């Protein structure tokens, strides 16, 4: 009883600030709403949803979202795992290396955007100069942000650079929780570094790995700040994910109804993944 009382302020806050807005979104999604200023919008059933499924912008956004999510998952998880494996060893300067490797996450996302925009600048950018000098690129002027095919990579560089430290942290905690006895036993059995990783570390990481991948999934679906500040979804919709499309529909096209229907779809997808997450965590740790 007392616990419920303690939780009440947070629950009430969340109900007001989260659940009520979601209810408004659901209601808007079945009404013919332009800017949200009309007091009596007409009920149009699922027309907003039907229109979305025939909308090329929607399918384009679905494709970009999948590409961006896969890119961020592979990049952040991969680099996170690599750095976590490096940091588990004892070496001189480890604390400093750890601080450097985790620092990007502590910076504002918009600072990451500013930095990467400057690094990838077409004419004067350091990245283009370095790539050109080491002969990885034939031209010193790669138009990273204005070429639709490259823009998604540019956004992914900034996103992964900012986000991977979280993966490092999770995986480091996971590695530390693997029993040292297992490593010793593997050592006695004469396992090499790869075999130790394959048969001891990787299986031992399973619970942390699953949770981390799901969190990265949420964060990729919900990534807005970096994409918005870096490209605003452009050029030519090449970086327009579903989360960005919700915003442009509402505040650039002023179609609140369509945007709300889209938001509801995104919400449904997120909550489905959330339910998966809940079941996963409930299975790993029984409640007492």
């Amino acid at each position, binding site marked *: 009883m007392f616990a419920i009382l303690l939780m009440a302020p947070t629950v009430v806050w969340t109900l007001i600030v989260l659940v009520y807005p979601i209810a408004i979104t659901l209601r808007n999604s079945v009404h013919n709403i332009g800017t949200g200023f009309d007091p009596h919008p007409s009920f149009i059933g699922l027309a907003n949803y039907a229109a979305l499924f025939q909308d090329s912008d929607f399918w384009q956004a679905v494709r970009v979202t999948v590409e961006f999510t896969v890119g961020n998952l592979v990049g952040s998880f991969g680099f996170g795992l690599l750095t976590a494996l490096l940091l588990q060893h004892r070496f001189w300067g480890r604390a400093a290396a750890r601080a450097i490797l985790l620092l990007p*996450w502590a910076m504002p996302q918009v600072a990451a955007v500013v930095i990467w925009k400057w690094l990838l600048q077409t004419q004067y950018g350091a990245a283009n100069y370095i790539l050109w000098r080491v002969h990885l690129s034939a031209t010193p002027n790669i138009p990273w942000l204005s070429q639709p095919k490259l823009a998604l990579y540019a956004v992914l560089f900034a996103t992964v650079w900012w986000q991977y430290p979280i993966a490092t942290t999770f995986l480091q905690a996971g590695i530390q929780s693997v029993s040292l006895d297992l490593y010793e036993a593997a050592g006695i059995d004469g396992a090499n570094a790869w075999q130790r990783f394959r048969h001891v570390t990787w299986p031992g990481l399973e619970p942390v790995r699953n949770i981390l991948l799901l969190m990265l999934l949420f964060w990729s679906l919900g990534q807005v700040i970096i994409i918005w500040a870096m490209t605003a979804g452009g050029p030519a919709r090449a970086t327009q994910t579903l989360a960005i499309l919700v915003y442009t529909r509402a505040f650039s096209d002023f179609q609140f109804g369509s945007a709300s229907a889209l938001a509801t779809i995104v919400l449904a997808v997120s909550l489905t993944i959330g339910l998966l997450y809940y079941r996963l965590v409930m299975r790993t740790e029984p409640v007492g």
Partner: protein
Amino acid sequence: MPAWGVARSVLLYGGVALACLVVGFPIYWMAASALEPGSLFNFPPSFFPLQPAWSNFTQIFTINPLAHWLANSLFVAAGTMVCAVALSVHAAYGMSRLRTRPVVALGFLMLIGQMIPVTVLTIPFYIVFRSLHLLDTLSGIVIATTTFTVPLCLWMLKGFFDGVPRELDEAALTDGCTRLGSLYRVVLPAALPGVVAAATFGFMTGWNEFFFASIFLSTETKWVGTVGLVTYMGQYFVQWSALMATAFVISLVPAVLFLRTQRYMMAGITQGAVKT
């Protein structure tokens, strides 16, 4: 065996050096560019500021109302920190001490805030804030940001509270403390690292908030640092060195804070997400 040991060291140090170089270079590049005199329009780029223009860092305060923006960021960050910690401390204590299925499920419900893209909530927030006259106010930004900060703070703190033995609060109860009293006087001090972690996280989230601030704040003197930075970047004649100096100043506060509380933060985040 010694040969293998040497090879292993070379591999390890080489890997660490390479990773640090790749990750650290963008940060170095920001700092180096911030100190370049002039417009930075030179190719090849100069990789070391031979004549550092320290005046860039004073100049940026006159180009833009940067002092205003930083003060506003401080307000939003502190506000988010206080609200998020005040809300989540109590809820986390409840969740930690009463671990029944409904309570845990409620805790997961709170996580919805972590799961949905912020843009999904933009329209309803806009509608609600307009009717409550919270548009173009910093308090509105605090309210919006707190909602997205509480879930992680909650789970972070719960992890730390779980580590405080129940016997401690029971002893306080028999000594005549109320439930809340035992939370404030016994459990909180014992779980101080967790509070530090949650507070740092709240502060950083508030400081780094950009999305709602960029939509809801229209008056230039009410902007926070992140909004000012992005708007400045979007100007037609952007002076990259001044932009980098601005980015540096805005990043400094959360970066220093993070480096000082790193250990607690990292323990907090993993405890919150990995354990139930």
